C-alpha cells in the first residue's frame, strides 16, 4: 500500500506493507539517519518526532503515520548542531550511535518542559540508552544547553 508522509517538511509517497514498522519504511526511503538499535522497543535509538512527539519508530506502525508529519535528526539539524556543541564539550558524544534519537528526545523535552529539574531530565531521557554509558556527560551537556538557552 502507498502512504503519504511529510518527512522533515517534504511530502513523500512511500510503499509499505500493512505490518511494517516506521523505521524500515523511513530507512528504505533514504532516511538512514533513523538508526536501528534493539528493534524491540527498548533503546530509543530509532526515535523520531511524530507530530512533534517523540516515538519509537521501531514500534510504530508505518501505515498509522499516513498523512502525518515526521521529523528525523536531519529535519532538526540546526538545533541538533547547537546541542552537539554542548555534548562534545562535555565529552558525551562518544560513539554517536544513540545521538540522533537522543538529541531528538532532548529537543522534544525542551519544547515540552522549558525548565526541567535534573530529575525530570533523567526521567524524560530514561528511554534513550547509551551503549557507551555516557550518561553523566549527557546530563551535564543537557543542563548547560538549557541554561545557555535561558541566558
Amino acid at each position, binding site marked *: 500500500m502507498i502512504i503519504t508522509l511529510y518527512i522533515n517538511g517534504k511530502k513523500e509517497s512511500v510503499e509499505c506493507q500493512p505490518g511494517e514498522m516506521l523505521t524500515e519504511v523511513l530507512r528504505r526511503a533514504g532516511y538512514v539517519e533513523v538508526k536501528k538499535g534493539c528493534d524491540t522497543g527498548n533503546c530509543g535509538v530509532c526515535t523520531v518526532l511524530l507530530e512533534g512527539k517523540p516515538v519509537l519508530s521501531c514500534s510504530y506502525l508505518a*501505515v498509522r503515520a499516513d498523512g502525518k508529519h515526521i521529523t528525523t535528526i536531519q529535519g532538526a539539524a540546526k538545533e541538533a548542531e547547537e546541542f552537539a556543541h554542548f555534548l562534545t564539550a562535555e565529552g558525551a558524544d562518544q560513539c554517536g550511535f544513540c545521538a540522533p534519537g537522543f538529541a531528538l528526545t532532548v529537543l522534544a523535552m525542551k519544547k515540552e518542559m522549558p525548565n526541567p529539574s535534573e530529575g525530570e531530565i533523567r*526521567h524524560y531521557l530514561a*528511554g534513550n540508552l547509551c551503549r557507551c554509558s555516557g550518561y553523566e556527560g549527557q546530563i551535564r551537556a543537557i543542563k548547560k544547553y538549557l541554561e545557555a538557552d535561558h541566558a
Partner: protein
Amino acid sequence: MEILEFASPRTLDEALHLVRDRHGTAIGGAAWLRMNTKIMPLGVDLSELGLDYIREAAPDSIEIGAMTTYRELETSPLLEARFGRLFSTTVSHIVGIQLRNIITVGGTLAGRYGFSDLNTTFCALGAKVIFYPGKSVDVASFIQDGEEGPFLIEKVLLPASAKASYQQVRITANDFPIINAAAAWTGSSWRIAVGSRPAASRLCKKAMVLLGNEPYPSDEKIEQAASAAAEELQFGSDIRASAEYRREILPALVRRALMEVRG
C-alpha cells in the same frame, strides 16, 4: 507480525463489524506486534475513531478512551486532580516516553498481560471496561475470565471519588515489575489487586473482606490484610524472581499501599 489486510474504520459500528463479522483483530498501540511471528489476516486500526480522551462523565466518573496513550495518562491534569500522582506512578517506569507515546489503554486491557502495571491499578480502583456498543464489565473480572467471542473495547470508566496507591518492585527501572500491588478505598470498601505474579492481576478478596468497610483501619489490621493477600494468591517463578520471593515481598507492598491511602 505479518498483516495481510489493513482496515481503518471511521466509525465504531464499522470497526465492530470488521472485528465481529470478518474476524478482524483490533489494533491498539501495536507496540508488541513486531515481537509476534503470527500472520494477522485482517488488522483493524482504531486510531481514527476518536478514542483518545480522558474526560469527566456522569455520575461521578471519569472515562478514558481505548486509544488513550500512557503518556496522556501520565500527564493528564484531570487524572492528577482526581487521583494525585496515581497514574503517573503506575506508568512512568515503563520503558521511555517514546514508547509511552505509543502504547494504549485499550491494548493493555485487551492483552490482559501478566506484567501490566496499569491493569493492577484499574482492578484496585474498580474500573469498568466498556465494550462497544455498551456492555460494561468489571476490569478485574475481564482480566481473570476474558470475554467470550470477538469484542471491541471502547473505553474504561473510573469511579472518580476513589483514592488509590500503586506500588511495585523492579530489578531495573525500565524492566517489567517483579510484582506489583494497588490498594483503593472506594468510599465504601477497600479493594486490593496484585499483578505481575508473574500471572495477570487478581483481586485479594480475603484481604479485602478482612479490611471491611472501615476507612481508617489500624496498623494491625493492615498488617493482617497484607499477610492475607500473600497467602491467598498463587505465585509463579520466572527469569525475574521465584514464587517464594514474590510471596515474601508482597506484604510490604500491600502494607505501603494501604497506609498511603489510609493516611
